[in-house]
Structure formats: C-alpha cells, structure tokens
C-alpha cells in the first residue's frame, strides 16, 4: 500500500521533472529570440521578463531526475553492468553473484546517502530547520545559495541523500524479491513484438533486451536460442530446431511467453 504510493510518487516526480525541464528551456530560448522581434506591446512585455535562471533550474531539475530516476531504474532493472561472465555460470553460482551485486548497490547508495546527508546538514539544513523552529544558534552555518535563483544550496543538494536512500531501499527490495522468487525486474514492454507487428510500443526500452549487460535471472530464456557456450556453431537446421524448442519452452513455463 505505502509501497504502491511511493512507486507512483516516484514515477510522477520523474515524469514531471523530465517534461518540466524541456518546457522551461524551450520557453527560455523562444523568449530570447521573440524579445528581439519588434512587435509592439508583446516586445515590451517580453523584455520585462527575465529567463536568466532557466539554465540553472533545468540543471537542478535534471539532477533531481537523475537521482530519483536512478532509483526508479533499479526497480525497472535498467542499470547496465558487465554480465558476460556471470551469465555463463550455473544457476547457484549466478544467484550468489546477483545477490552480491544487489547488496553492493545497497552498500554504495547507503554510504552516499549518509555522506550526502551529513554534507547537507552541515551546509545549511541544520541552520534552516533550527531557525524555522525559532531556536537558531549563533554558531550555525547558514550555507551558500545558488547563483541565479538564490535558493539555499542545501535544499538543492538534498537530492543526494533523498535519492540515494530511495535507491538503497530499491536495491534491498529487488534483492529480497530475487531471493524469494528468483526473478529480477524486467520491463514489460522490453521486447518488440514479432514480425507481424509493425507498431512499436510507446515505451519500448532498448536497454532491456536479452543482452549481456544485465544479469539473467533464474527464469530467463533467450529469444530464439538457448545459450550454453558449447553449441555456438550450430547449423542452420539446428538453429531453427532450437528456435522451435525455445518457443515451446517459453509458452510452456508461461514466463515471458504470455507477455508476447
């Protein structure tokens, strides 16, 4: 329940930041050129507007998007790695490596969240929060502000502790699910549908194909062939045979088959 709300909030935030930043830069560029055109009335009004802050706001929005999007990316399993070797291991060894990788992710993001949190606290959050409750101390550091928008930097930088904590939580969540079910997250629309289909789904994701940039989970089946190293020089007939076999298996265990 809470998890679902968190998922939605995360998606909403990331979508909004992506769209918002695009619109802001578009409007700022448009403004720069329209203000140079002599249209009575409109030009005067445009000249009163100042878009000097657009670039800075765009950067801030994208950095926030990057931090929270990276957390969302853990949930969708988009982060690329070097999985050529572990994908050739047998299942029990691969399981260990996958869990190790996920926990390493949690360790790194957890550490960064702590470091970032301390940094934000010492650079103004402490002052701002204590001031808000009317108990400001003399020796607290107010912290710098950003150059154009003059926002306190601690608020801007709080993307690091917030985003990294969320990412840490996501890594633990994915690890837990993997231990329980043996499945890693993959995008539902990752596979472009077969030859009959001419329309690409709107959210096709080229990074979630069957490549070796992501670990294969325990329920993984290759498209078109099974890969176990030895049979790489198959004749055409054998490949075709494999493909038929692969399709049957897919439909049989109902893993990816039912999505296609």
């Amino acid at each position: 329940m809470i998890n679902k709300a968190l998922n939605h909030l995360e998606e909403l935030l990331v979508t909004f930041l992506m769209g918002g930043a695009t619109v802001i830069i578009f409007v700022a560029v448009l403004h720069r050129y329209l203000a140079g055109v002599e249209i009575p009335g409109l030009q005067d009004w445009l000249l009163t507007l100042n878009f000097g802050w657009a670039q800075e706001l765009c950067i801030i929005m994208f950095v926030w998007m990057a931090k929270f999007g990276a957390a969302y990316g853990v949930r969708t399993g988009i982060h690329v790695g070097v999985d050529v070797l572990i994908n050739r291991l047998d299942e029990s060894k691969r399981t260990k490596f996958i869990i190790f990788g996920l926990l390493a992710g949690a360790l790194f993001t957890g550490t960064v969240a702590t470091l970032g949190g301390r940094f934000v606290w010492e650079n103004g959050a402490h002052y701002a929060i204590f001031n808000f409750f009317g108990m400001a101390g003399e020796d607290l550091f107010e912290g710098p502000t950003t150059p154009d928008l003059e926002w306190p930097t601690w608020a801007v930088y709080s993307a690091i502790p917030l985003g990294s904590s969320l990412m840490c939580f996501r890594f633990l969540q994915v690890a837990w699910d993997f231990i329980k079910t043996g499945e890693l997250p993959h995008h539902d629309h990752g596979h472009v549908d077969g030859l009959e289909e001419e329309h690409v789904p709107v959210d096709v994701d080229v990074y979630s194909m069957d490549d070796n940039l992501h670990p294969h989970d325990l329920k993984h089946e290759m498209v078109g062939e099974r890969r176990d190293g030895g049979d790489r020089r198959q004749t055409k007939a054998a490949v075709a045979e494999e493909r038929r076999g692969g399709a049957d298996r897919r439909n049989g265990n109902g893993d990816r088959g039912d999505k296609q």
Partner: protein
Amino acid sequence: MNALVIFGLLAALMLTGMPVSISLGLTVLTFLFTMTQVPLESVALKLFTGIEKFEIMAIPFFILAGNFLTHGGVAKRMINFATSMVGHWYGGLGLAGVLACALFAAVSGSSPATVVAIGSILLPAMVKAGFPNRFGAGVIATSGALGILIPPSIVMVMYSVATNTSVGALFMAGVIPGLVLAATLGGVTWFRAKKNNYPRQPKASWAQRWVAFRRSVWGLLLIVVVMGGIYTGIFTPTEAAAMSAVYAFIVAVFIYKDMGLKDVPKVLLNSANMSAMLLYIITNAVLFSFIMTNENIPQALADWMLGHGLGMITFLLVVNVLLLLAGNFMEPSSIVLIFAPILFPVAVKLGIDPVHFGILMVVNMEVGMCHPPVGLNLYVASGITKMGITELTVAVWPWLLSMLVFLGVVTYWPTMSIWLPKTLGMM
C-alpha cells in the same frame, strides 16, 4: 602502484556483474577510505556537481527527442522516401534501409533506437518482399550503428563531457565519416544483393519521389533545426537538443498523429528512466576520474607510455584493440566515460587531434554494438526478428568486416574527420 590497485579493483567489481555505475562508485569509496587524504565532503559535493554542467543535459533531451521519433510516423515516412529514391537498384529495400537508417541517425542520437525505429517497420516489409531474414537483420543491425556517428550523438556528448572537447565540432566531424560509412554499408548491401539476385522495387517516378519527400519533410527538417542551429550559433547544443525534443513532440502528436497526448507521460517516464541510468554512470565516472586526476594517474600513464617509445601509429593501434576488446564487455557510454579520461592525455601529448580521437572512439563503439556478447543492436534486431544471436552473428559479418576496414581508414586518415569542422571554422 595505486593505479594498479584502482584498476584491479574496478575490473574485479565489474566482473561480478553489478551495475557499472555502482562498481565505479565503490572503487572510489574504497580508495577514499583506505588510501588517500581527499576530504569526504568534497566527494559528497562532487556527486551533485559532477553532472552540474549544462552540456550534459543534452543527453536527456536527445533521448526524449529520439523516443518521440521512434514511434512509427517519422521513421515510416523516411523509409518510404528512401525506398522511392534507391529502391529500384540492386538490394532494393535493403539499400533503402541503409539510407533510412542514415536519415534517422541524423535526427536521433542512439544506435539501438535507430534499429528499433527503422527495423520494426522495414524488416517485416523485407521478409514480405522475399528477402531472407538474415539479410535484412544484417543490414539493419549494422546500419543502425550510424545512429551514434551521424550527429546528433549521445556518445559524442559523453566524450565531450569526459574530455572537454566542443560538442559542436564533434557533431560536424561526424558528418563526413557518417556518410562514408553509410556508402560503404550500402555498397556491401548492393554487392551481396546483386550476387544473390534479391528482389528490387519498381522504379518510382519523380512525382512519387516528390510526394514521399513532402510527407517526410517534417522529420527531415529536424536535421536543419539541430545542425543548422548549432552551426549558426542560434542554439547551444543543449538548447538544440531541447528544441528538437519539443519539435519531435509536436510532429509526433499533432502533425503525424501516431501518438496520442495520453502516451506522452509514458514516453517522458521511459526517457527519464534511460537518461537517469546514463546520468548515474556519468556522476560516478566523474568521481572516478576526479580521484584519478587527484592521484595524477593519467599523467603517469602518459609518461610511462611515451617513455616506452610509443609512437602515434602504435598508440592508435593499441587504442583500437583496447576499445574493441572493451566492446565485448560494456556498452558504449560506460566505455567512453572510463577510457576517454585515461587515453585522452596520451593522445594529446602525441599530437592527435581531440576531435579526431573522439570520432575514432565513436567508430570503435559502433563496431562493439554489432557483435556479441553485448552488442545492443544485435539484441534489438533479435527482439524484432526473433532470430537467435548465433544466427544474427553470422548474418552481420559481411557488414561488420567492411566496418572494421572503415575503422582502419578513420584511424589513420584524420583529415576525413576534421576537414569539415576546420573548414567551417568550428575548431
């Protein structure tokens, strides 16, 4: 010594299969806690300021633009236009596929996206027209690689971020090699089709060509917006990327109407997901190169290499081999972000032009995308055709071989890359 420990640790962590970004970050953290005096605060700050450059923001914008363009409309009309122009020659639809990929590459900055956009429409059509499955898959998987050579290109933005080279000059430098590679791939297609006598399309009249051109003109105009905008200085590359994202949105939703307004949030979320993944690698790669610079490792490596009498020719050969090997394990963005900061100082000391070096890296990345085990283009093509990777590997080899020859030419003939930006006065 420190360098060995750092790279050893990084390689070990990466081979366990954890995300590249996490292995970069953990290497940095381990190094910080055990071997150096760099204050932790400066690292926390770097996590934010590492991607606080406006140039980097071109990446999410180009991804967004590409995602708007992928959905049918623009790609379909470009294919029709290409078919009307070259479809009657040997190779017919295959040749049209190369041309369509080149056109789409000029509006999109990503290779796999080009394969998805062109392949999902053209490959079924090619099978219907009587081409063997392998031929079509081979053409599209390799031609899709043009996506990162013909500007705009996300990999070029990554290179410019890692080495502070001008994005505009890099984009311009990609134009001529891109056209040459397209011609080479087209030549291979033509030759193979002629040998096997594959079907050809009926010749289109000039009136039909004009109609096809007019229908595809909204997509083609985007080339003018991006390249013209950057060249004339109307936009910075990032602004051009933002403009192309808005333009692509308008074309997809209001002009070609392949996509409803209700699909827009999905596209935004999907683009954000992909961009955030790349930006996260950048953040950690920036941390990594910050630590390396702090320890003077690139300089030490450069001195060591030069001390062993490494000439320009040997160095470029070593770079090519190194990058081609790396292409067996990693995807292009990570390779560029990790290797460019290390190799770049050496290249500069040897008097290699930064822009030429960038193009060389990009072409290496293209080759890596077209062969297993991690070639994204192959996996996308496999997703579309449902062919196995082994079969696809066999299918792409004629084009891949010509691409390797092309790589040799790019490596040892810098004029091809730097003539255009020099002539235009961009470098």
